[in-house]
């Protein structure tokens, strides 16, 4: 059947081969970020598997590659690969959205190599130099000691400098070109992205105060600035893959940002329950955490409305499938698993147990990994010269199985960790009042151990999905000569009457 060809991919571009020459400067930079993101994604899964094995066999690699190091690399690799993915995604879309060339491409390129070199050194230090007491010198050179953002102080300065370069590139490009709703929200969000990281860079000998500021980075990055960044990427992605109308997408981006800030900023309080902050945080955290599911209800109504009123025809099946996985993953991981244990009366038992790990696995994968993977597929389509990636592409089983295995793997780990987490909360916290004896009894209990075994099994399923994903990203569109389809949206008044076909 004949299909409309996407005119954003001219016929002069050779199809089916990787063609960096025909990418714009921002996209060439994005490809570098995406490549490192994939390497770090692989590292995240590998170190996660090692840490998981150490739950089952505590002597495994003892004094060679200890659990604390594996866990630290597992989590830090996740945060950094997602950040690489976000930066790459913005560089990918910035010239298209601004309608002009990237400003400061050379500076952006330099920042990429500085960041990549710094990440390499930090990981090498994590793996090779993790002995001895923590002191002022080790904070600067080895490990800052703050969970999830353990990078030493020198690397902190590097991260802020790189994010500021990224901010300059993006904002200056929009200033040179044109502004849109998406770019306005994006640029404001990047100021917060760089600024909030500063809160995790100063030191206080008061542990409560230290934790107070540390959560500004962890919570406000993840539940505010990252969510808005993802909203911007999603908005642009829907326009590109489905032909959604800009006005509608932008309006909903504003609504999403308003709802998210209304609930998410003071939802920070749910991290302040047990760190020595005043009691009023229990009320604030509980109340605003209860508001956090509201944007999800709005999302459900809007998704049903859109799917019924607009008959979308998408131009990139794998990307759209991952965008749908993002919507579901965000809802279940952040919404259902989050609200399950966010109120203080429950959180008293679950905080810091495997229950939290269960929530973390599904929420990070659902909200952030999925949308980065969608962007990888959008990028590879153009990198191969704007090839056809609709229904019936050769070897489609690879991306479908990669999608299935990664989602089944993460969902399986989530359920297994939930079982272990419930046992841990009940035995260690409720029955034994958080004593050491309670901790060890919970760690030895049958349900806890069985949960950890199943977590490891589903970890292998996730790893198998990742192998397929890498294989598919390397090979998809290779030798394909058909041009990409044009995304279209047809507006329907009711189920029988078509009102207005619209296209790019």
């Amino acid at each position: 059947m004949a299909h409309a060809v996407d005119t954003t991919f001219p016929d002069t571009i050779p199809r089916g081969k990787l063609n960096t020459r025909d990418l714009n400067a921002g996209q060439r930079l994005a490809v570098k970020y995406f490549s490192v993101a994939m390497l770090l994604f692989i590292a995240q899964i590998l170190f996660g598997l090692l840490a998981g094995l150490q739950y089952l066999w505590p002597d495994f690699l003892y004094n060679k590659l200890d659990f604390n190091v594996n866990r630290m690399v597992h989590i830090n690799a996740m945060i950094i690969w997602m950040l690489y993915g976000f930066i790459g995604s913005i560089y990918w879309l910035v010239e298209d959205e601004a309608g002009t060339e990237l400003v400061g491409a050379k500076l952006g390129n330099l920042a990429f190599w500085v960041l990549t070199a710094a990440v390499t050194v930090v990981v090498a230090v994590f793996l090779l130099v993790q002995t001895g007491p923590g002191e002022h010198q080790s904070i600067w050179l080895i490990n800052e000691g703050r969970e999830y953002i353990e990078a030493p102080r020198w690397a902190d300065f590097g991260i802020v400098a790189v994010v500021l370069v990224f901010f300059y590139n993006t904002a200056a490009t929009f200033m040179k070109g044109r502004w849109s709703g998406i770019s306005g929200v994006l640029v404001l969000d990047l100021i917060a992205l760089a600024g909030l990281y500063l809160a995790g860079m100063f030191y206080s000998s008061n542990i409560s105060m230290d934790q107070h500021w540390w959560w500004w980075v962890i919570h406000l990055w993840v539940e505010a600035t990252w969510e808005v960044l993802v909203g911007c990427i999603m908005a642009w992605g829907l326009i590109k893959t489905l032909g959604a109308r800009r006005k509608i997408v932008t309006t909903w981006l504003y609504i999403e940002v308003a709802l998210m800030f209304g609930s998410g900023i003071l939802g920070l309080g749910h991290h302040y329950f047990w760190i020595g902050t005043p009691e009023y945080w229990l009320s604030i955290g509980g109340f605003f955490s209860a508001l956090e599911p509201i944007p999800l209800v709005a999302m459900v109504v809007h998704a049903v409305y859109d799917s019924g009123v607009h008959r979308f025809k998408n131009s990139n099946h794998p990307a759209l499938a991952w965008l749908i996985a993002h919507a579901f993953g965000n809802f279940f991981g952040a919404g259902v698993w989050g609200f399950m244990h966010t109120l203080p009366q429950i959180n008293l038992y679950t905080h810091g147990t495997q229950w939290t790990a269960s929530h973390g696995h599904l929420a990070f994968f659902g909200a952030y990994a999925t949308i980065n993977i969608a962007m990888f597929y959008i990028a590879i389509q153009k990198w191969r010269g704007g090839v056809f990636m609709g229904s019936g592409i050769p070897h489609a089983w690879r991306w479908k199985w990669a999608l299935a295995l990664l989602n089944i793997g993460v969902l399986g780990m989530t359920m297994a960790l939930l079982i272990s987490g419930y046992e841990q909360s009940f035995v260690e916290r409720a029955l034994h009042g958080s004593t050491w004896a309670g901790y060890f009894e919970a760690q030895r209990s049958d349900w806890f151990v069985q949960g950890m075994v199943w977590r490891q099994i589903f970890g292998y399923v996730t790893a198998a999905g990742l192998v397929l994903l890498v294989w598919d990203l390397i090979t998809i569109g290779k030798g394909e000569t058909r041009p990409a389809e044009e995304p279209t949206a047809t507006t329907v008044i009711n189920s029988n009457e078509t009102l207005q076909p619209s296209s790019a």
Partner: protein
Amino acid sequence: MSMMTEPVEAQQIMLAAMAGAMVVLFGAVYAFLFAWSKLHKRPVIMLAAYLSYLCLAAATVALAFALHLSGFWLIVVFVMLVGYLLAPHAIWHLCEGTHEPSTPHGTDEITSQPIPLEIKQ
């Protein structure tokens, strides 16, 4: 106003957690069925939507019971239930308002055209 400090009883940890999860889950099912019913003009589905809302209300009551909520917090629970009931109506209304056909996608709401940078000496 109580500070939400009285923990759930040990036997009710699972009840409280599951009730919390069901609040969000039934909230989404209610929103989904509501929108589906409006889209296809099927009153039977609307009935299922309101049944889901009743399940949501039951989960909320179970949660309030397990958390020992009282006074101000019961008012919050009531406001939340009203909010969940009305939110899909409001969002649907907003959807209809924002999806009025106008210009083709990708061209509206671009606020300015490319402007060359000028360097004043």
